[in-house]
């Protein structure tokens, strides 16, 4: 299925999916950090591969991302994306190590990496649970894969399945943020369903007017 356009109805449904998933995820994060977390209205867009990289500040920009493959009836890929500073903030909060830096340290800090993976697990787990409940489609996250590298390099992985079918991806992007101080948290959820999953999602929600 090559998608060039979505109907307003389809866009609404996908936006709602982003909303429910990220809403749930934001609450988990809020409990984990004991801080207020806010989320923006999700955006649904059909984007070329280069545009997707632009959403995270360009393909050369270094990001911290947690990748999960969704297994089950509607496979796809979820990314939870942070900047380096945000990821460091998380680790400092969770490990009580205020001097922690991600890239400078000589050897990998196992506790820090494991803390990040655990954040990913909890947050993405709640994202997918909400999605799964809403659509009544079975979706299981894989173990988290942590990547700290150029956006282009890590995000391409999630586009490979789809790139065999199309030059565009449907990105359901939700920003979560922590208001107040400067050292706030801003994260992005990218949900990239595999091409065959759209029909299943739309079917499950009773929308049949896709091409």
């Amino acid at each position, binding site marked *: 299925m090559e998608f060039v356009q979505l109907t307003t109805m389809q866009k609404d449904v996908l936006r709602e999916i982003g909303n429910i998933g990220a809403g749930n995820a934001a609450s988990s994060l809020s409990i984990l950090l004991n801080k207020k977390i806010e989320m923006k209205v999700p955006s649904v867009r059909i984007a070329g591969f280069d545009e997707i990289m632009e959403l995270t500040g360009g393909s*050369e920009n270094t990001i911290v991302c947690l990748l999960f493959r969704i297994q089950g009836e509607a496979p796809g890929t979820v990314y939870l994306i942070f900047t380096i500073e945000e990821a460091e903030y998380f680790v400092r909060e969770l490990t009580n190590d205020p001097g922690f830096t991600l890239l400078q340290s000589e050897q990998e800090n196992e506790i820090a990496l494991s803390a990040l993976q655990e954040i990913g697990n909890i947050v993405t787990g709640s994202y997918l649970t909400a999605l799964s409940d809403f659509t009544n489609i079975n979706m299981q996250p894989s173990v988290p894969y942590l990547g700290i*590298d150029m956006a282009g390099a890590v995000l391409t992985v999630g586009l490979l399945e789809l790139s065999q079918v199309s030059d565009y991806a449907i990105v359901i992007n939700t920003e979560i943020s922590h208001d107040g101080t400067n050292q706030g948290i801003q994260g992005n959820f990218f949900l990239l369903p595999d091409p065959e999953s759209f029909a299943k999602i739309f079917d499950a929600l009773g929308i049949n007017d896709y091409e």
Partner: protein
Amino acid sequence: MNETGLVVKVGIADLKVVQVPDLIRTSGLGSCVGVIVYDSSKKIAGLSHILLPDSALAKQAKLNVYKYADTAIPYLINLLLERGARKYALKAKLAGGAQMFQLSSGSDIMRIGPRNVEAVEKQLAELKIPVVASDVGGNAGRTIEFDPETSQLKIRQVNKKEFYI
């Protein structure tokens, strides 16, 4: 290095050709492979950012020739020849083809980095274009920039010093 040159950017599954004084660049290569084909005395170079190894994988009505190793490389060579490069003088440099995540699901698509490199090398061998330098594999992203003036390929990785091949 030069004041007047532009840096021409090549996107994902894209392909472009430049001449001195311009430089050509593509960023964030992960499993993708950046192939530079150049004629060093004519000072002309082309860069192709290859996403997938084989157009037989395509399930697309309208094939994007820039995306696959087996279609993009011949296209790039033709473009270079049209712009005045000489077939016998063409050489290639490669970078990319990393494996960004050690995904456990056995899907073949997850080994795409090494497969891209193999496919590119095979295409270049068939077209009798020697690969004079390459920096492939590993598990880190790369940004590359080629200067047709010096035929040097600059490679940048996160948290590493830039180097030339």
